């Protein structure tokens, strides 16, 4: 939901480009040739049934899942692979991969906070080790980010002392502190008790309003309907539908999308806009 004045005629910068990406796990082809573009300040929600490959697709954007064929470009640079002297494609080294995805932040379903550090400790760790900031600078930056997600008052708490929603907000702050250009969210609220989901979605909405480029794999159709610029429906490793929320939720629908939404609707009503 980003109101960007006068952008209709201006082509938006492509932040991530996926071309014919294929990912296999053993003999099983999970991603079957996907093309996708993520533009600057765009909020893209990826929806689909379990096992459709949506999380794997997101992880390919971060090279946490190493795609087998096709290309993923982040900021114009090929992610995960380079070419050797003979022009053959080889897996890039870890430093090279880090270089390409330096502006990509990720938020995980299981939060993945480091349990032996406080919230502040978690957020400033990368600022200290990767950005090599000094103690004061890192602390200040970390606190600022924690304030942004509403967790400054719990800076000295350990993850085990925080609720799920609070932990996820700290995890968002941790990724945000590194000032990424793109934020990837892998089912950020799926592990949360229903009453804690709201506070996390709130933070994400604010990020969207501030113009962050976001790719969100989610089951929260309300978020997709209200906040997304583009909704992507993936099933069995292929993108079956892609468009604005209106087009996806209310327009002419691919039969599998219809089935998916029908199943969802039977448990949730989300068309109230």
């Amino acid at each position: 939901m980003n109101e960007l004045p006068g952008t209709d005629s201006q082509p938006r910068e492509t932040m991530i480009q996926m071309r014919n990406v294929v990912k296999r796990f053993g003999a099983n082809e999970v991603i079957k040739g996907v093309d996708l573009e993520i533009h600057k300040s765009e909020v893209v929600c990826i929806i689909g049934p379990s096992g459709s490959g949506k999380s794997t697709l997101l992880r390919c954007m971060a090279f946490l899942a190493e795609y087998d064929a096709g290309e993923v470009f982040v900021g114009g640079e090929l992610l995960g692979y380079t070419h050797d002297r003979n022009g053959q494609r080889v897996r890039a080294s870890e430093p090279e991969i880090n270089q390409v995805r330096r502006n990509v932040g990720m938020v995980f379903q299981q939060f993945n906070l480091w349990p032996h550090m406080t919230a502040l400790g978690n957020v400033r760790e990368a600022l200290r080790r990767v950005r090599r900031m000094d103690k004061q600078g890192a602390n200040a930056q970390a606190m600022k980010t924690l304030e942004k997600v509403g967790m400054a008052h719990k800076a000295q708490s350990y993850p085990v002392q925080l609720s799920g929603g609070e932990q996820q907000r700290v995890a968002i702050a941790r990724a945000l502190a590194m000032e990424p250009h793109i934020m990837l969210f892998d089912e950020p609220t799926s592990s949360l008790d229903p009453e804690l989901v709201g506070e996390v979605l709130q933070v994400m909405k604010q990020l969207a309003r501030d113009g962050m480029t976001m790719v969100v794999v989610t089951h929260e159709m309300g978020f997709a309907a209200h906040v997304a610029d583009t909704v992507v429906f993936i099933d069995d490793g292929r993108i079956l539908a892609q468009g604005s929320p209106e087009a996806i939720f209310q327009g002419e629908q691919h039969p599998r999308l219809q089935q998916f939404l029908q199943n969802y609707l039977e448990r949730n009503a989300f068309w109230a806009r």
Partner: protein
Amino acid sequence: METLLSMLSTLPLLAGAAFATISISLVSLVFAFFLGTGICAMRFSRVAPLRWLAIAHVRFFRGVPLLVQLLMLYYLLPSFGINLSSLAAAIIAISVCSSAYVAEILRGGFLGIPPGQLEAARMLGLGGLSTLARIQVPQALRLTLPALVNEVILVIKASSLVSVVGVAELTRTAQNIAASTYKPLEIYFLVGAVYFVINILLARLGVLGERRLAKAHQS
């Protein structure tokens, strides 16, 4: 009963022997920890031969009885020109044997860290060394503390075997006293009690240590 009381007169001697047992065990454990850490690192290496060497080390030294390892060190080496004192043979044998167990314990600790935490570190750009030092080691140590305390207790018990090559620790001293007083039942009971007390104290210390660690940080 009176025999038990007369046995108490041997306590000063046993105290010295207990000190020897504890010292030998602690020194061996320190060596075992460093060696075990090295073996564990090799176990996770990307270089296949290093991994195989680590696996072989663990399987060999956990598969052959400590007594055999001790005898090997003490009796075989002289044929190669290396003459070790019984104390040196004892410490080396226990160190190397325990290192195999320590390596496996540490390996279990590292494998017990949820992989998602390492992914988060990668996404934030943290390099291998940073991740190891700041995220893996602190948590692995916390996870393995109970098993490491158990290893300390196992080494204290295993040290009784070095009596076989003549080291004057608790068991050897007990044998000497039994031979001179002809009261084996009483003396072995007493020495058993001494070992038991040492191990109980160590177990207590371990529990305290775990609690301390858990209070400061949580997992």
